[in-house]
């Protein structure tokens, strides 16, 4: 099948959806530290409006149109914001989770300093994510990808402690180094093939190029740029260190924005620029699959060795996000669907766990695994949400994680790559090995006399901490149980993959 350029309709909506949170962010920054009530209203309003806009876009896309907005960034090179079905998948994930995270963050930071700055950059961060979701070509993607780096750095160093500043430095070294390579790959690509927009099935398939070496090099350069944020081994080291950031930031980094943006970028690179068949012809798919597999196993093993809860979750992310890369690298309809749907599933599961970890730390001062004993007695709802998400991660049916893993495994079998199944099994066992003890400790062990610390905030704050986790835990269940219904993430991913794989 030769990919064909998509019919698009000029529409300001993709731009508007990006700008909503930008303006919110600027307004929050301008308001200053003390306008707490107004800031909260603005934050929530922007999040709700954004979610509504994304839904509107989704309806348009379901109706078969592809709204697009473009203008020349550099003459000859357009900034393209376009909402196709892949965009909608990612955009709706981040819009929904942003709303949830905002609620959580307001509660979490109810007594912190520098909140104007925090929420300002928080909003800009989501702007960047939305731009990444809506990016219609690699240049646009790059622009928002860099914006994301810039907007997340202040969040990482938010507390201003030595450790935070150091983590921020590590973060920058990795991301900026990666993006420099990304930029070179981008320049090279455009020099070779001219400016191109994303096309399902691969925009490069439209031009006849006999440049195997160059294309391989370009792919590697760009993939390194993406791989840094997607935390593919050995480019992952920044992620565990960035755990010093406040919990909502970790949630954002791991589930919504940064890591996900990297994984999403790999999807775009493989499916919309090179195309699955070219990627595979160039031998790149196999290489990516190997890298992803190593990451999956390595991340799980290291997670097993952690005694700090957030570190464990971080390495778990390293491992889990590579399922997405693995899915598209394995290729074929089923595995690709598995990868795509994991984009959403991993998001809701992991964000739940980070919410809960933050809650544990805030209310009880619990940060280490050995302190989890008997915690379910004290915080049953949070512990419940955490457990559901963890079981989902392990892949227990009928939770969301199971659906992803099932499709990945089936896809591997279908394409005859049985070793991938081995990786999945190993990973699942390892997941179980580090998550089950946590669940066991929370529910089965007796509670200690005294908890390590923590505060007792107002009931509203506690509600703000617990409710988001419950909601996402519910999603974890719903996405698994209702996977077969229409407009479920799985259904949507299947729709997308029809465009990718004939």
């Amino acid at each position: 099948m030769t990919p064909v350029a998509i019919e698009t309709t000029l529409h300001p909506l993709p731009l508007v959806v990006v700008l909503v949170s930008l303006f919110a962010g600027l307004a929050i920054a301008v308001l200053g530290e003390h306008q707490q009530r107004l800031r909260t209203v603005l934050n929530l309003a922007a999040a709700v409006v954004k979610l509504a806009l994304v839904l509107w876009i989704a309806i348009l896309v379901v109706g078969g149109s592809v709204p697009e907005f473009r203008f020349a960034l550099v003459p000859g090179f357009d900034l393209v914001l376009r909402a196709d079905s892949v965009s909608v998948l990612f955009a709706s994930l981040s819009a929904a989770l942003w709303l949830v995270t905002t609620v959580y963050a307001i509660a979490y930071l109810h007594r912190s300093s520098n909140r104007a700055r925090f929420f300002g950059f928080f909003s800009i961060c989501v702007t960047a994510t939305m731009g990444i979701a809506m990016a219609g070509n690699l240049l646009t993607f790059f622009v928002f990808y860099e914006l994301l780096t810039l907007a997340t750095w202040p969040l990482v160093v938010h507390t201003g402690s030595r450790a935070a500043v150091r983590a921020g430095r590590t973060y920058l070294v990795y991301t900026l180094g990666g993006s420099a390579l990304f930029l070179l790959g981008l320049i090279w690509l455009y020099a070779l093939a001219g400016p191109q927009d994303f096309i399902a099935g691969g925009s490069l398939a439209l031009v006849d190029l006999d440049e195997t070496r160059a294309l391989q090099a370009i792919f590697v350069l760009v993939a390194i740029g993406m791989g840094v944020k997607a935390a593919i081994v050995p480019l992952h080291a920044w992620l565990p260190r960035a755990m010093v950031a406040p919990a909502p930031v970790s949630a954002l980094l791991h589930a919504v924005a940064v890591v996900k943006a990297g994984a999403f970028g790999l999807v775009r690179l493989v499916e919309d620029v090179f195309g699955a068949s070219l990627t595979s012809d160039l031998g790149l798919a196999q290489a990516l699959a190997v890298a992803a597999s190593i990451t999956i196993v390595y991340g799980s093993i290291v997670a097993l060795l952690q005694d700090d809860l957030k570190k464990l979750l971080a390495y778990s992310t390293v491992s889990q996000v590579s399922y997405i890369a693995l899915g598209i690298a394995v290729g074929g309809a089923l595995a690709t669907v598995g990868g795509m749907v994991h984009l959403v599933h991993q998001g809701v599961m992991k964000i739940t766990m980070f919410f809960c970890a933050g809650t544990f730390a805030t209310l009880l001062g619990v940060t280490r695994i050995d302190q989890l004993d008997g915690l379910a007695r004290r915080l049953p709802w949070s512990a419940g949400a955490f457990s559901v998400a963890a079981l989902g991660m392990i892949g227990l049916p009928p939770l969301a994680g199971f659906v992803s893993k099932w499709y990945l495994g089936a896809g591997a079998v279908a394409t005859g790559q049985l070793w991938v199944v081995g990786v999945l099994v190993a990973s699942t066992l390892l997941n179980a090995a580090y998550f089950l003890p946590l669940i066991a400790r929370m529910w089965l062990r007796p509670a200690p006399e005294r908890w390590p610390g923590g505060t007792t905030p107002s009931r509203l704050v506690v509600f703000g901490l617990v409710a988001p986790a419950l909601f996402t835990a519910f999603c974890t269940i719903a996405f698994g149980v209702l996977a077969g219904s229409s407009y479920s993430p799985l259904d949507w991913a299947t729709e997308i993959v029809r465009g990718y794989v004939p």
Partner: protein
Amino acid sequence: MAPDALAVLVFAPLVAALAVIVAPPRATTALALAGIALTAPALWVVTAAVLGGEVVEVALAGAAPPLGIAWRADGFSLTMAWLTFVVVAFVSLHALASFPSTSDAGRRFWPMWLILVASVYALFLSADLFNLYVTLELVTLTAVAMIAIGGAPAAMRAAMRYLLLGLMASLFYLLATALLYGQTGTLDLYQVGERLGEGALATTALALMITGLLVKSAIVPLHVWLPAAHGKAPGPVSAVLSALVVKVTLYILIRLWFWAGGALDDGLAAFVLGLLGAVAIVYGSIAAIVQTRLKMLVAYSTVAQLGYVMLLFPLASTAAFRAVTFHVLAHGVAKAAMFLAAANLLAALGSDRLQRLVGADQRYPVNVLAFALAGVSIMGLPPSGGFVAKWMLLEAAWQSQGWGWVAVISAGSLLAAVYVFRVVALAYAQPRPASSVRRPGTTPRGRFGATSVAALALAVLAIVLGIASAPVLSLIDLGLPPGMAP
């Protein structure tokens, strides 16, 4: 209409300067602002004419070259003139607060400031080698005098060094002018280009001239005067020095090379200039990284950023010309913002030692934000003017297969990230309890004082340039060197 507007560009600030000298201090603000503001409509008229396909030209006193001097505005000179206006307008806003017209320093500042503006405009309009010499001297002398305005010994030493090297450079330039006039019988740069022909003679004369210009542009290894001069000068002066004053000689250099430099048409000279640029980028960035003072850091950043301009000579393509011109623009705006922000922080904290910046973001968020936004452009990260420039430059380097240049450009922006983030990270860091005690002599300004607004506005503009690059580039396209097609 348009030719008269050229005269307004020079005469309006000049008349304002004279009026400021004669009139009582309370009229200074109004006169100065009027003199600067009047140039905006004039620029607009000229730009409209140039965009309409005209080359706006006027032979002064009706005597066309070679007899006399002509003012001429094409896309290139207009781009620079707009940079002048924008930087001067915002920096003036800052200066209204930092050099109040009734203070001693203000009375000294404003007349020279206006003369500087007039001479920079005159320089961009002129293509007469000797007239350029006079305007250059004017620019140098005003710049030196304004560096010394504060009266600090360190500033005066910097001013003295700048003055000596500047005068020496001018003499090299003047000597070359003499030789070129002897050979061609004209001082008009374009006519010199037509008549000069090739040969060792022409090459050597041009080499002398270029050497002089390189000293004034502070291209490594001739940069020794710049860091102290830019670092020790008062805020608005630093801003305009880095944003404009070092650019004027680069402007002349580019004009000379591409419009009259037929004699230099061999790869070696261009390569050497490019190499100097590459060294400047790397050396300047590393030097910036190891600085312990904010303004010195920003000054070394200028040394590095000027290096990018030199890459134009080996690349020598339309794409490179557009990229470099845009870079000059983006860097000018961003660097002015950076210096203003740095100056505000210095004024507020009482010192610009980097360690004092710890926690600055909590008290001076606007200035830290301005610095960071300008830094985004300096690093060449999107979306910013600096990114567009870097993108086009990388593209140009890639097209000409200059892999070395590509590597240097990439390395340069990474190194820039190191020094920019070093500052911002300190500002974001939490002060340790012991050091959080406010030291005496620190008078925090209001969050939205005129000085902060000026810095922030320029910084935002540096970002906006990255989104609204198209109109600027279409103007630049109307000033491409002969032999380059858009």
